[in-house]
């Protein structure tokens, strides 16, 4: 806290319903991405790399795995004295019954006591669902320079897609004059990234009022930001340039993985100055056998490959049998492709086995197929 007087709160309760079987037993932030990571590694590593020392992670939906995963703060270097990752699922309190978080803002409201113990000047609100690299300290500098009450990170999106986002309309000084949630006729293409810096004293006051407002959805985008604008508070947009992806669907999760195959891709996971940290898995380097053919692929430790892998991302301990073909696909941890099996445009969920000679997916499918159950082999 001494470094920047800012505490981060990561909203990690998302169900990610459109990821189907991948989020059946884990919340969306725990979904695997990029060969060795989970999505939540990105905001956590960003916090660590930005010099933020205290991070609260608000969990709710299927939180068992996520709670233990993020609690091991040493993975991201968030375990020094006065530093730590705090897991914050809903809890029973003296003056209230055990309740679920009713919305993004309510999740913070129910943890006002937690934030107060650190007495921060600023609070950074993040989503645990997004893949990006961002230096939050730069955003904080901007916040201070503008003398803002709140700063919202925005990214320019193609105008024709703007109606899918929360759009910020700003003046020439980047001050936000209007916020429109999924506007039919957008006036700007600055989409909110769901990343906010607030002055804690002000946010605290707004949250207390929001908690008892019967008409509120207790949501940052729907309630808190509009309320602040109504009060004529100083809200500023901070423009982010770089890779940013909210992987809501199987198709977009696949796409985000495929993005990594491009040389000089924007996310650049190999940049030593901004590493993304994750669980340290014990396994050998990956093995490529005599019959292995590997082109345009992102492959991590523990994989064993004796077939053809093209345009694909392979996670820890994925196995590709002799003569198997894995094209335009994602194999999650411990996925196994039997000898001679052929895969096109699929995501194979973790631990799922594809039998010998099976043919899965197709090269000209419109959507990516998620394989979450064992596929029998053919003789």
């Amino acid at each position, binding site marked *: 806290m001494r470094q920047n007087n800012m505490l981060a709160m990561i909203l990690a309760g998302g169900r990610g319903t459109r990821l189907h079987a991948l989020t059946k037993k884990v919340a969306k932030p725990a979904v695997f991405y990029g060969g060795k990571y989970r999505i939540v590694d990105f905001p956590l590593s960003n916090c660590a790399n930005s010099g933020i020392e205290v991070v609260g992670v608000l969990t709710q939906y299927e939180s068992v795995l996520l709670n233990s995963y993020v609690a091991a703060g040493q993975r991201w270097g968030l375990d020094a004295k006065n530093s730590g990752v705090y897991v914050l699922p809903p809890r029973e309190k003296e003056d209230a019954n055990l309740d679920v978080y009713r919305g993004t803002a309510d999740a913070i409201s129910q943890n006002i006591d937690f934030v107060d113990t650190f007495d921060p000047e600023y609070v950074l609100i993040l989503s645990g669902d997004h893949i990006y690299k961002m230096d939050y300290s730069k955003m904080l500098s901007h916040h201070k320079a503008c003398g803002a009450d709140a700063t919202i990170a925005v990214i320019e999106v193609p105008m024709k897609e703007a109606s899918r986002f929360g759009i910020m309309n700003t003046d020439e000084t980047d001050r936000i004059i209007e916020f429109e949630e999924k506007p039919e006729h957008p006036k700007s293409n600055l989409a909110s990234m769901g990343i906010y810096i607030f002055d804690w004293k002000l946010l605290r006051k707004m949250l207390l009022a929001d908690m008892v407002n019967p008409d509120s959805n207790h949501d940052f985008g729907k309630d808190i930001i509009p309320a602040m604008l109504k009060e004529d508070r100083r809200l500023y947009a901070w423009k982010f340039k770089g890779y940013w992806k909210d992987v809501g669907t199987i198709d977009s999760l696949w796409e985000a993985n495929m993005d990594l195959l491009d040389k000089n891709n924007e996310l650049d996971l*190999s940049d030593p100055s901004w590493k993304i940290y994750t669980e*340290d898995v014990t396994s*050998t*380097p*990956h*093995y490529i056998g*005599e019959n*292995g053919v*590997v082109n345009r692929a992102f492959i991590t430790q523990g994989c064993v490959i004796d077939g053809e892998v093209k345009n694909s991302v392979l996670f820890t301990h994925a196995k590709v049998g002799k003569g198997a073909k894995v094209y335009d696909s994602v194999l999650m941890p411990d996925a196994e492709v039997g000898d001679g099996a052929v895969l096109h445009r699929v995501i194979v969920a973790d631990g799922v086995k594809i039998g010998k000679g099976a043919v899965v997916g197709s090269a000209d499918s419109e959507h990516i197929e998620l394989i979450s159950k064992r596929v029998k082999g053919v003789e």
Partner: protein
Amino acid sequence: MCNAFGIVNFAGSNIHVEGMQDHRPIGAFSFLGRYRTIDFPISNMSNSGINHIEVFVKRNPRSLTEHLGTGRHYNINSKRGKLHILYTDDKLQSDLYNHDVSAFMYNMECIEKVPYPYVIIAPSYMVYSMDYSKLLEKHLESGADITILYQNVDTAKDEFMNCNVLNLNKQKGVLSIERNRGTAKNRNISLDTYVMSKELFMELVKKAAKFSSMYTLRDIIDDECSELDIRGIAHHGYVAAISDFKSYYDANMRLIDYETAQDLFAPDWPIYTRTNDSSPTQYYETSNVKKSVVSNGCEIEGTIENSVIGRGCIIKKGAVVKNCVILPGATIGEDVHVENAVVDKQAKIVRVKEVVAKVEEPAYVGRGDIL
């Protein structure tokens, strides 16, 4: 839990690896891309339930101490356990006096304080998997004073040169310890791994120091063969002794075979190492990789065949890497052909287009060199 503590000993002066050892002790040698050789004895101890491990470091301690850190990554209990790095006496008159016995004497106070009655001593220059709790069990069952782990090999004429050899009787009693001079094919190679009581260990160390200021642990145990009940227990499976440059190369190359590697890396016997947080490896359109072991964080555009590639290596377009051990952070430039070579850390082969050696005499490209 294991009723013993561990000592990881450094290699004696009989062992020297040309080139590489000038930069770091053998324990700190990069091994199979992502490991260092010392990961093996420490993981063996940790997996065997040994929670107190003393690592002795002779010289060039920087890379080793950095790698070992607090020992957290070796799964050593951070409160009840300990990974203790101990240094040799730096006031010795000559390097000849700088051997294991003098290091044990110098740190005798630490050894005395250890609250375990038995000790397992393993060398940092050997690579194998072994459950030491079972070894201790067998040692106790037999009632022997000292148990030495060995491996029977039929390649002693060409391999394990200068390593220790156990001269065994039919009952596996150790008659003497000799050096392998390559005079016979079949030998019982000592894995320099000893089990005994802490009491006896301290007694022998003191005795050796008193007897000769150049006596090593192996020397005093050899002397005691006629007095004490010293027995050998055979190890089976993958063993490598990094005793010279060629053996380092061969030890890596042998593990390219997945079946052989399964023998060293059993699923229930994890070998731990320090994470580098590197991203997965990126293969581009032009990559052509066969029969190889590749670590994370690499960028590969060229051809790799029958090689071990360390973390964070760059293999450029048109490059051909064949029968090589490439250490972490090395770069093989465009259209460069490297064959039968060990390329040390951070080396860059970019200006010369060909580094080809004979398979019997692999080439060594020095640490950080730019060719």
